[in-house]
């Protein structure tokens, strides 16, 4: 046999191997698009699952947000929904639960604990369970209210109402405000109202007060049935924390008063009105370290703020912050290459209409 036969066999072998390589490449490439789409679909379903659990479940114990003895070490189940013994409404959240997501809150629940309670950090390769997830939960009022005193007149305030989406100015929003300030041993108040102009702003003017540095301004803004309240405190006013009917005050503050002022915003004759009333308070138990707890004789579910004076006449205020960004990876850029999915719901928190946005991403592949 001459050498040409060997070349024929070699050529045939090369062709056969080339066919294997080519077909393997084609076969491995074809399903990758389908698998990628499937991966995205799975993250989408997982996001819906988590959103449902967070917004429709009230957690365990059901009143965990207002119970100051519940911290991240003994919270058993996580959920933000408002709990009622009898009737419940979907997408109505408990402001006490929501304010626990604020990192400035003394009873803050960390994202890692929430991820654990929602089983998002679980991986078990032996069960083919390799997907752990990270998340960002954004909760913002639909109407964003910004309050700033006018530099030329400290008794006047500029109130700007804009939409949460793209910060577009809201024109013709009804703004009602109540200014609280100490006068002697009591808390006095003035009221003002206005309508926002083309730029979403309006000015509110009050009479001068005894101590310009000690003022609390409570603003209610309404536009087409969407409502939000905002509390603005001047520099000398001190902050306390409100959980259900309990007030947590810095233990260094000396407070002998039993008179506390509750501020509420209620709808009367089709319009939101800010009003206030006094309740009794007494020193309670279950205070976290560094705080003293005061128990109010009654706490309105829709309370916007609680005001009181300390022995040295400092004006204290406690309000619930429901504007929160809560994330397992803080400051994650939206253009991140993580395989993620975002979804959005509208919820009611107290008397404020809010947008709840969840972004869920896979930590592992």
């Amino acid at each position: 046999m001459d050498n040409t036969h060997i070349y024929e066999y070699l050529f045939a072998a090369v062709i056969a191997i080339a066919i294997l390589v080519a077909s393997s490449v084609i076969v491995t490439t074809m399903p990758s698009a389908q698998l990628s789409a499937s991966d995205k679909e799975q993250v989408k379903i997982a996001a819906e699952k988590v959103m449902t659990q967070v917004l429709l479940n009230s957690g365990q114990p059901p009143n965990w947000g207002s119970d100051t003895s519940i911290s991240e070490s003994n919270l058993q189940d996580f959920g933000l929904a408002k709990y009622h013994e009898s009737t419940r409404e979907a997408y109505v959240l408990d402001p006490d639960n929501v304010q626990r997501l604020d990192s400035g809150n003394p009873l803050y629940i960390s994202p890692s604990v929430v991820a654990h309670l929602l089983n998002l950090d679980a991986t078990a390769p032996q069960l083919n369970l390799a997907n752990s997830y990270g998340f960002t939960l954004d909760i913002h009022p639909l109407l964003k209210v910004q309050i700033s005193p006018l530099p030329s007149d400290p008794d006047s305030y500029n109130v700007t109402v804009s939409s949460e989406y793209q910060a577009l100015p809201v024109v013709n929003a009804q703004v009602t405000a109540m200014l609280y300030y100490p006068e002697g041993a009591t808390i006095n108040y003035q009221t003002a109202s206005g309508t926002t102009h083309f730029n979403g702003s309006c000015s509110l003017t009050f009479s001068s007060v005894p101590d310009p540095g000690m003022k609390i301004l409570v603003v209610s803004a309404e536009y087409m049935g969407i409502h939000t309240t905002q509390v603005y405190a001047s520099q000398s006013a001190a902050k306390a924390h409100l959980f259900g009917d309990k007030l947590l005050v810095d233990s260094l503050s000396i407070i002998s008063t039993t008179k506390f002022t509750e501020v509420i915003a209620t709808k009367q004759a089709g319009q939101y009105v800010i009003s206030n009333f006094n309740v009794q308070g007494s020193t309670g138990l279950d205070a976290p370290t560094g705080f003293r707890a005061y128990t109010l004789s009654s706490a309105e579910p829709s309370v916007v703020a609680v005001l009181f004076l300390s022995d040295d006449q400092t004006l204290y205020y406690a309000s619930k912050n429901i504007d929160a960004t809560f994330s397992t990876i803080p400051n994650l850029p939206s253009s991140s290459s993580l395989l993620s999915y975002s979804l959005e719901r509208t919820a009611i928190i107290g008397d404020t209409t809010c947008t709840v946005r969840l972004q869920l991403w896979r930590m592992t592949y």
Partner: protein
Amino acid sequence: MEVPIQHIIGTIALMGLVISIGLSYTIITDFLQTDTRRQQLQEISENVALHVVEIVNLANFGNSGSGVMTCTLNLPSDVAGKTYIVEIFEDGTSLPNSWYINAYLVTNHNINATSLIPLRAGQSKTQLETTSGTLAEITYGPIYGGGNNTVVWAQKTKTEETEITRAGLGRLSAGG
């Protein structure tokens, strides 16, 4: 005779090569098919987990003693021609206090997918049924994919001290 022997050796070598190429191709496609089946099972288990979460929360909105809620599952009849099973599982070792949905092929349990349910076992007032049994018109327990009348169900009941929501997978009996 030199020439025919070389031809025989060359032909046998070529045939061996073709056979090994065929085997390699089968192994590669089988591996890819397993991956695709696992992805499909993953989608199924995620969907079932979502339905479980939804019905548990829906049941929690109602009053106790208001009956059994069901939601029909529209699952694919098979995964690439293979029958599969979906079940709720609670694992006390690898994932303490976790419930998850497990979907696997009947013919090969190693081709499986798991999806977690964001509820803490033993701590919330929810009990997911991981065993088999009957409740009203439902036979609950693991379900075969593609079967008729497969449902997720939930029932809120009240004992003397606490309210508890039971939920699980099952099949409605005929006419149910």
